[in-house]
C-alpha cells in the first residue's frame, strides 16, 4: 500500500488495512501527540488528522492536530525548498505532492530580486492562505506585476501555510465520514487531553472576571471614553466600547462565538453598575452627546450586549440578540480609522481585548509576591 493511500482512497478500508499491516503507525501518532517525538511519517500524521476530525473541523483538537502536522512537516519543507532551487513541478516530499500539487513556487528570474535575496516568486493569489490565516498581510510582501517575491524563509512559511490550509480541508472532509475505530478514538482522546491542558494554560494566562481597570485600556478604548465627533461616535460607543467593556469585565477569556452574558454572571448589577455608567459617560462626552442626539442608540447598546432592543434588560433577556465580540484591530482601523492610534504594545496584538489582558497580566506579574 502506498503511504499516500489514506489521502486518496477509501479511508475506512485503509484504516483497517493499516491496522493489519502494523501497529507502529498508531504508536507513532500517539508519541507525536504526547510530544515525545517531533517527526512522524505521512501515515501517522494522517491518523492524527483523522482523529481530530472526530471532534469536528473547527474544534480546538483540530487546531492542535494541524499545529502538530505543521511542525512535523516544517523540516521536510525546509529541506525541500533548499534542495529544489531549480524549477521543479514535482517536489520530492511525497506528502507535499499529495497535499499541494499546484503551488507554483518558481525561482525568480530577475537579478534585482536575487540580489535582494528574493529567490522565489508566486502569483499573488497563492499567498491567500497566509492572508486568510492572518499570519501575513499583503503589505508584508514584495509584490510586483502580479507576483509575490519571497526569500527562503518566506517561501518555507508560505508552503507551510498552504499545507496547513490543505490539512484543514482534509480534516473537514474526514469529519463528514462516519469513522468508528477504537484506535482512532483513542488518538482523539489524546488530542482532547492535550487541548484541555492548553486551554487551562490560556485561561490561566487570560485571567478571570475582575473589576475594570481603565489604566490598562488600549488607546482606541481610551479615545472612545474621551468622546468622539459625529462621524465615529456610533461605532465608538455602541460597537467598540460596549463590546470591549463587557468582555473585559465579564468574560475576558471567552473565545466562543455564541456566548451569552448570563453564562458568566448571575447578577445584572455588573452590567448596570460597572459597564453602563462608563458607556453613558463616554456617550455624554461625544459631540453632540450621542444619547441626547440619538436616544435609540441606548437600546442599541443593550442589543449589542445580547439583550435585544430594550432599555431595561434582565438576565433572562440575554439571548435575545447576539453578544457582539470585540472587533479586531484590523477591522477598527478600516471602519473607524480615527480610533486607531497605536502605541508600542499594540504592535503585537490583534484585538483590543488582548491588549487589556496582557496589560493586566503584566501588572499581575509586577505585583506578584
Amino acid at each position, binding site marked *: 500500500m502506498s503511504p499516500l493511500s489514506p489521502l486518496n482512497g477509501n479511508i475506512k478500508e485503509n484504516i483497517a488495512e493499516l491496522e493489519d499491516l502494523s501497529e507502529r503507525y498508531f504508536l507513532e501518532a500517539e508519541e507525536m501527540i504526547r510530544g515525545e517525538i517531533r517527526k512522524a511519517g505521512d501515515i501517522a500524521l494522517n491518523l492524527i488528522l483523522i482523529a481530530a476530525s472526530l471532534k469536528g473541523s473547527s474544534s480546538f483538537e483540530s487546531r492542535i492536530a494541524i499545529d502538530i502536522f505543521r511542525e512535523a512537516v516544517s523540516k521536510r519543507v525546509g529541506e525541500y525548498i533548499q534542495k529544489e532551487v531549480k524549477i521543479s513541478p514535482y517536489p520530492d516530499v511525497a506528502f507535499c505532492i499529495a497535499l499541494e500539487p499546484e503551488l507554483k513556487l518558481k525561482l525568480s528570474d530577475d537579478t534585482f530580486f536575487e540580489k535582494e535575496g528574493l529567490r522565489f516568486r508566486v502569483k499573488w493569489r497563492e499567498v491567500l492562505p497566509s492572508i486568510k490565516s492572518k499570519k501575513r498581510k499583503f503589505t508584508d510582501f*514584495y509584490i510586483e*506585476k502580479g*507576483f509575490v517575491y519571497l526569500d527562503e524563509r518566506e517561501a518555507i512559511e508560505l508552503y507551510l501555510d498552504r499545507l496547513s490550509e490543505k490539512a484543514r480541508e482534509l480534516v473537514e472532509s474526514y469529519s463528514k465520514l462516519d469513522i468508528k475505530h477504537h484506535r482512532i478514538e483513542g488518538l482523539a482522546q489524546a488530542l482532547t487531553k492535550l487541548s484541555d491542558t492548553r486551554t487551562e494554560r490560556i485561561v490561566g494566562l487570560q485571567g478571570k472576571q475582575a473589576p475594570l481597570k481603565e489604566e490598562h485600556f488600549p488607546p482606541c478604548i481610551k479615545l472612545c471614553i474621551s468622546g468622539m465627533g459625529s462621524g465615529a461616535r456610533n461605532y465608538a460607543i455602541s460597537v467598540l466600547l460596549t463590546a470591549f467593556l463587557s468582555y473585559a469585565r465579564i468574560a475576558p477569556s471567552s473565545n466562543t462565538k455564541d456566548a451569552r452574558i448570563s453564562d458568566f454572571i448571575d447578577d445584572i448589577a455588573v452590567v448596570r453598575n460597572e459597564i453602563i455608567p462608563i458607556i453613558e459617560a463616554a456617550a455624554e462626552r461625544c459631540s453632540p452627546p450621542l444619547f441626547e442626539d440619538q436616544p435609540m442608540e441606548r437600546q442599541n447598546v443593550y442589543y449589542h450586549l445580547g439583550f435585544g432592543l430594550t432599555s431595561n434588560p434582565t438576565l433572562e433577556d440575554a439571548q435575545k440578540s447576539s453578544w457582539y465580540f470585540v472587533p479586531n484591530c484590523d477591522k477598527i482601523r*478600516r471602519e473607524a480609522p*480615527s480610533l486607531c*492610534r497605536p502605541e508600542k504594545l499594540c504592535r503585537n496584538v490583534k484585538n483590543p481585548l488582548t491588549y487589556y489582558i496582557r496589560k493586566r497580566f503584566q501588572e499581575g506579574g509586577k505585583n506578584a509576591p
Partner: protein
Amino acid sequence: MLLREATPEERRLYYFEEWKASYLPDYMTKSLTMREFAFDYNGEGPKDRYRNFVTLTQFEGHMVSSQPYAAYSSVAFYREPQKRSGWLSAELVFDIDAKDLPVRSCKCRKGDVCEVCMEEAKEFVLSISDTLRDIFSLKDIKFVYSGRGYHIRVFDEEVLTLSSQERAELLDYVAGNVVPERENLKGRYPELFIKKAIKILPLFTADVRKEFDQPTIRVHRLLKYLPDVLEDLENDSFRKLREILSNKTYLSLLETIREVNAGMVDARVTVDVKRILRIPGSLHSKVSMICTPVKNLESFDPFRDAVPKFVMER
C-alpha cells in the same frame, strides 16, 4: 455649479427624454439576470430590494415607468438574485467619495463637493488603479462617476471570488492603510506609502491638526520644513522627517498619514460582497448628476460629462 436635488418632474424628464437602456455598460447587461436590483422611489433609501430582471426591455420598462430617485444593482452575482441566494462571485469595488475625503485643498464644508475636491478624488482613484495594474497585474478595471465621487469596479477573474477578509487586506495595500515597518523601508509597499505621503503632506493645515489630533507645534514644524521633507521623500527617504521630528512624533505622523489614507476609501463598500451600487446611467437625484461610466478618467470632467439636460436648462 449648484448641486441641488432633482424634482419629480426633472426625474420624469430625465427618464423619459434622456436616459436610454444603452446607457447601461456591457458588464451590466451581460450579467443582468444574475444581479439583484434595488430602488429608492422617494429619497428614503432603497426599500424596494430583491428585484431581478430577465431582459433588458423589462429593466428599461421599470426605469422609465418608476423614474426612481436612485437605482442600484448588486456587485454580487447570484444563482437566485431575487432571493439574494446562491452567491457565485462579486466584483471588487472601491468607493471614493469626494465629500468624505479627510483632507482637501478646497474650502468645501463637510458633505459638499466642488471641482477642486472632485479632481483630488480623481487623482486618488488613479493612484489606486495604478496600484491594481502595476502591483497586482489586474487589467479589467472600470470607472464610474457616482455623483459625488467615483467607483472603481474590478472584474478580473482573480478577484471575483475573494472573501471579505481578503478584500479588506487588498484594500489595506492599495489605500496605504498600514504603516510600513521601519526596518523595511525598501520594497513596493513602502514606496507606495511614501508616494501617498507626498500627496497628503502639502494638504496638512491647521484644519488637519484639529481633525487628526496633531498638536499645532508639530504641524507648524512640519510645514516649515515641508519642501525639504518632500524632496527627501521623493528619494524614498524619511531622513528629513526623522531629523525634524522626535521619534514619537515621527511615528505619530506616519500613523496620521495612514489614517488619512484609510479615510480616502469607504472600506465598508470594498469588504461587502453583497453590496449594492448606483447603476451606471441612473440619476443621482440628490445632486442632479448622472452616475456615469467613465472611459477616459484623465480627461473626464463630471461638471461637463455627467450633467443631465434638465440641469443645463435650469
